[in-house]
């Protein structure tokens, strides 16, 4: 709150100095440091005010709402942990948590594995490789809403659908894809891998560029096969990159919303319901704001816990510094 008050006054004070004749006020250390702090505050104010209004206050409201029965215009009623216990005893929520975890793990692992394969296949400095990598990278740049619409068309159930006619060549299908509760979650996951793998590929390529070439030579002298070289030299060198990619993807996986909302909206029969789609429905369709807020807080805590766990795990590994 102090950040909102300060800058307005400072802004009025700061402009005078531009004239070259005016020396800075001579009050030694204290005033110079104060001036520096004030200018820093002015320059930081727009960012901090925006974050305060649209990140931190909503976060505070989420925590506050999660302990209340929220009744617009009537005033909130304190209910303690009621919202949490109601949410956690709800089968619908537990299913959503389970499906979120499956989706997050599957997409993270799938993107990473496909990303490694792509990176190894498309590594190199030739111009044609650069062009191919750019083409492969496109899914990551395209808006998620477009990705979802394209895949809905590709996934069209029935023999005439694009993917169904493709897998038909191999004597498979036709599959219902998004329309059957047996295949819907996997179909959504495949879209996530399709969009996530090129991103992982690019980061892994950057990691591959940093692998010490003399190690390759040394292993070749020792008579290592390509497979041994990959396993003992390349993959260990990429470990820090994997740690980052897994963290980022897992955090993104927890809050997955848009693709589910557009591909299946949780259906059929709740088979693709994830935490975020459930929160959205609870809050904006069923007006259970307190329970929805409790869901948000749980998701928030999970995100923070995941981030901290990875940070601690990375700090604990001393070899990281040595590698740089």
């Amino acid at each position, binding site marked *: 709150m102090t950040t*909102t008050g300060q800058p307005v006054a400072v802004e009025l004070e*700061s*402009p005078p*100095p*531009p*004239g070259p004749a005016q020396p800075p006020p001579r009050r030694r250390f204290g005033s110079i440091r104060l001036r520096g702090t004030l*200018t820093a*505050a002015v*320059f*930081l104010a727009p*960012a901090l005010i*925006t974050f305060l*209004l*649209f990140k*931190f*206050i*909503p*976060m505070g409201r*989420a925590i506050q709402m999660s302990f209340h029965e929220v009744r617009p215009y009537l005033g909130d009623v304190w209910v303690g942990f009621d919202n949490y216990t109601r949410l956690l005893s709800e089968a619908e929520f537990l299913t959503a948590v389970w499906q979120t975890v499956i989706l997050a793990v599957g997409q993270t692992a799938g993107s990473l594995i496909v990303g490694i394969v792509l990176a*190894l*296949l*498309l*590594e190199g400095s030739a111009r044609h490789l650069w062009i*191919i990598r750019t*083409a*492969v990278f496109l*899914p990551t*740049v*395209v*808006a998620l*809403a*477009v990705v979802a*619409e*394209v*895949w809905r*068309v*590709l996934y*069209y159930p029935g023999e*005439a659908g*694009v993917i169904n006619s493709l897998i038909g060549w191999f004597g498979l299908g036709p599959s219902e894809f998004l329309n059957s509760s047996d295949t819907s979650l996997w179909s959504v996951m495949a879209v996530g891998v*399709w969009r996530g793998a090129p991103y992982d590929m*690019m980061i892994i390529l*950057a990691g*591959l560029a940093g692998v010490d*070439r003399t190690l390759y*030579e040394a292993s070749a002298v020792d008579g290592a096969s390509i497979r041994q*070289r*990959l396993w003992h030299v390349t993959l260990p060198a990429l470990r820090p990159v994997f740690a*980052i*990619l897994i963290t*980022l993807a897992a955090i993104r996986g927890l*809050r997955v*919303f*848009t693709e589910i909302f557009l591909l299946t909206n949780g259906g059929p029969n709740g088979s693709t319901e994830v935490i*975020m789609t459930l929160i959205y429905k609870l809050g*904006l369709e069923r007006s259970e704001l307190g329970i*929805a*807020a409790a869901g*948000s807080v749980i998701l928030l805590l999970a*995100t923070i816990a995941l981030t901290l766990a990875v940070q601690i795990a990375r700090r604990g590994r001393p070899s990281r510094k040595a590698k740089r």
Partner: protein
Amino acid sequence: MSRTERFDTALGFTSSRHPVTRILRWGVYVVCIVVFAGPLLSLLINAFTPVSNPTSLTLIPDTVTFDNFTRAFDRGVLGYLLNSFFVVGFGLLAQILVSLSAAYALARKKFPGMRLVLLLILSTMMLPEEILAIPLSLVLADVPFIGVNLIGSLFGMIIPVAAWGFSILVMTEFMKEIPVELEEAARIDGAGEFRIFISVILPLCRPALGVIGIFGFVMIWDQYMLPLLVATDTAQYTLPLALRTLRSDPQVGLGVLLAAALLALLPSVIAFLAMQRQFMKGLTSGAVKG
């Protein structure tokens, strides 16, 4: 010569000139492109193909038509597109200004509490719109201290994206590299704080502006939850949001939907292709350093 080339890559097969491995390698490339770019290419082709059947996509169109686009414009796609451009234009402008200003303080000034500020900015990256959706919709309806209702106004999609932790951090990293001597020289010449910021630091930030510009563009264009919370009427929808409405409109065929999807895809792809080197640089500096 060939020995050193062999170790350019982990697999070491890029240097092989043997015809069989070459064919094999190009086979792999084609598969990669078909799998990842294919769906988008089919979108491109079929947006120009008369399609009525909701399943059939063609690879080689027999007739090329702009019908889908004219019909898409009849369904209000131009309005959605303008909304999108309005939001991205002002959102990106605000985001760049805010990032520059915050990065200037973080990279060029020393002040107590700097670590705390950095930590706060980092922590915002754990607070995305998705997770905060429900309280955020209440905050947007009655912005604290100001008491403005941003619901139902395109500014509700613009103001919250003005500050983005990622672009502030990328900009800060970049500004740290600018030599202090330049700043000191300007100060001796009598330049004030804003003068230094605008005439000394800002011009040197152009490469980083490219990076945060394109990342910000892609990020704001891809926004879904925020516009969904803010829009009260389909007339305020951005193009990505409108795709869902178009899909469920019984009078809109697949061709029209694909035409609209193509329009929603093109700006970010064009921006990416135009600045891909900067994009890749930002991608790796943002991720591998973190």
